[in-house]
């Protein structure tokens, strides 16, 4: 199993944000996690990417137990993530942002910096080339020199993808990649996510835009109040009574086809 989460629990004092959740993500899949606000989706991502230690449970990535590892070690092992509120190095240009993404694949340290060693120069060039490559992949090579403050929300989302991709991940966790962009742009981002999996990446995403999820995801996990209430293909989820109840408080099956949330 590519990513396997077993019995994962996170408690904040008396509040259980995640309760005994299981998740299995297959290589090359797009796996969506949905659920009403406050369902514990982002916490779930924080646990997998190491930003918060779980209270109990295990996370296994490619056969290695990564539970409780710090985020930078998890990133080194090939899990990249983006943040819900588009999170970039605001003071830098697009290129500088993406270049630093390659840092964990480079070795140059203090002495390399001071003496500008061959390694430093080589790795700098590699980082630059890779930055252009991922910017091309997300379709923004023309914005390389723009400061982050000067680009649109949708472009920021793409830069965040590029930054994640620059770390050479195998699994990408996307936290609401299409929040705050219009529907045309959403389609573009969906196509980009599809393109990532074609390149052999595995994607796990949190999203509220149902039309996008239903057409994109191979599998969907539904969380509600910290617990997994359903998992299956988009078709199964659409007709799952527990899901319908969680979203609509007990409605008619056909109403599940509406764009919710």
């Amino acid at each position, binding site marked *: 199993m590519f990513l396997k989460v077993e019995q994962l629990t996170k408690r904040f004092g008396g509040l259980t944000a995640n309760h005994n959740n299981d998740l299995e993500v297959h290589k090359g899949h797009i796996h969506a996690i949905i659920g009403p606000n406050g369902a514990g989706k982002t916490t779930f991502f924080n646990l997998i990417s190491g930003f918060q230690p779980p209270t109990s449970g295990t996370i296994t990535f490619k056969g290695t137990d990564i539970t409780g590892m710090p985020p930078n070690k998890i990133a080194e092992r090939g899990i*990249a993530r983006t943040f819900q509120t588009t*999170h970039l190095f605001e003071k830098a240009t697009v290129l500088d942002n993406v*270049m630093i993404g390659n*840092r964990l694949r*480079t070795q140059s340290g203090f002495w*390399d*910096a001071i003496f500008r060693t061959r390694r430093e120069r080589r790795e700098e060039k590699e980082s630059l080339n890779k930055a252009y490559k991922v910017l091309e992949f997300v379709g923004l090579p*023309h914005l390389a020199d723009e400061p982050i403050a000067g680009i649109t929300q949708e472009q920021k989302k793409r830069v965040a993808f590029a*930054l994640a991709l620059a770390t050479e991940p195998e699994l990408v966790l996307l936290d609401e990649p299409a929040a705050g962009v219009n529907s045309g742009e959403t389609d573009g981002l969906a196509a980009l996510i599809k393109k990532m999996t074609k390149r052999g990446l595995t994607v796990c995403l949190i999203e509220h835009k149902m039309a996008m999820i239903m057409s994109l995801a191979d599998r969907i996990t539904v969380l509600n109040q910290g617990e997994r209430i359903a998992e299956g293909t988009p078709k199964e989820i659409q007709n799952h009574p527990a899901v319908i109840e969680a979203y609509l408080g007990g409605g008619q099956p056909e109403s599940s086809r509406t764009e919710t949330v």
Partner: protein
Amino acid sequence: MDKVMNIRNGVILTFIITLLLPFIVQSQYVLHVVTMALIWAISVYGYNMNVGYVGSLSLAHVGFFAIGAYTLGLLTVKAGWNFWLAFMAALVLSAAIGFLVGLVSFRTKGHFFAIYTMCVGFIIYLIIDKWDSLTGGVRGLIGIPHPAPIGPLTFDTLTSQYYLVLFFLAVTILVAKRLLHSLLGRTFLAVNNSEELARAIGISTRKNQLLSFVISCFFAGLAGALYASFVRFIGPDIASIVLGFEMLMYLIIGGIGTLAGPLVGTLLMVWLTQSLQFLQDSRMVLFGPVLVLLVIFYPQGIVGGITNHWRKRRKRSDLKHSESKLPKQVPSHRVNARR
């Protein structure tokens, strides 16, 4: 391109002026003040490599300046060590203590880090002040020797000491520059920009913060050792918080995180302090409001403000150009063009 040439020429011109300064300036007093300013500048550059690059505001910086000064002073005066051996020991000890302090203090963040390091700085001050038998307490330490000659080079005269300090400042600036434009420097800036995002892309924030802290302590120690050998008398007041805040003020006014900021800020403020000496401590009434205005309108100090201004102007002229031209091509290899 014009601008780049101008900056370059400016640097060369500044360098020539500093080289010729002892011949231009006849007054020993002025040369003394300038040498002192250059020593402060070394310390402020070190400060910048921590506060400006990685963004952790340490208030213990002046403590490491004092550690450098006292290590040199005690080893030469009391232990009778060879000057340059003691000098090296001062640098190593400053960095080593910095490492140990950093190990603990980076467990705290933000304001707590600032407060914690301020306490560390104060403890260093107290140790120097109270440990009478070792440091001489409030009486201080007298008779620290001038730098020992290196081959044919002697450092007995003010002019030669000026050049020695200038040499170390040049090395410091070179390190600051190389560091800023390296992958490590980019990593520091990433940690400064957003710790959370830096960690998400695989950067160990703790490791980088600690490294930059040790580097800054090293240069604080260097400045301290130079100070001790230049002034030849040291007292506990060189570890005082007031001096620490003065260094921070130089940095903020010059431009935090910029390359020229520490030098510009230090020279300007030392000059102002000298010219306003008749006001004594009430010159702070003047400095205070200026500092507040600067932080509000130019958070990146004088140098940061000027660079931003240039950038805007260049952008405006770029826009004018691009109206008549096609969008410019993205150059494929610009590593070198960017420096």
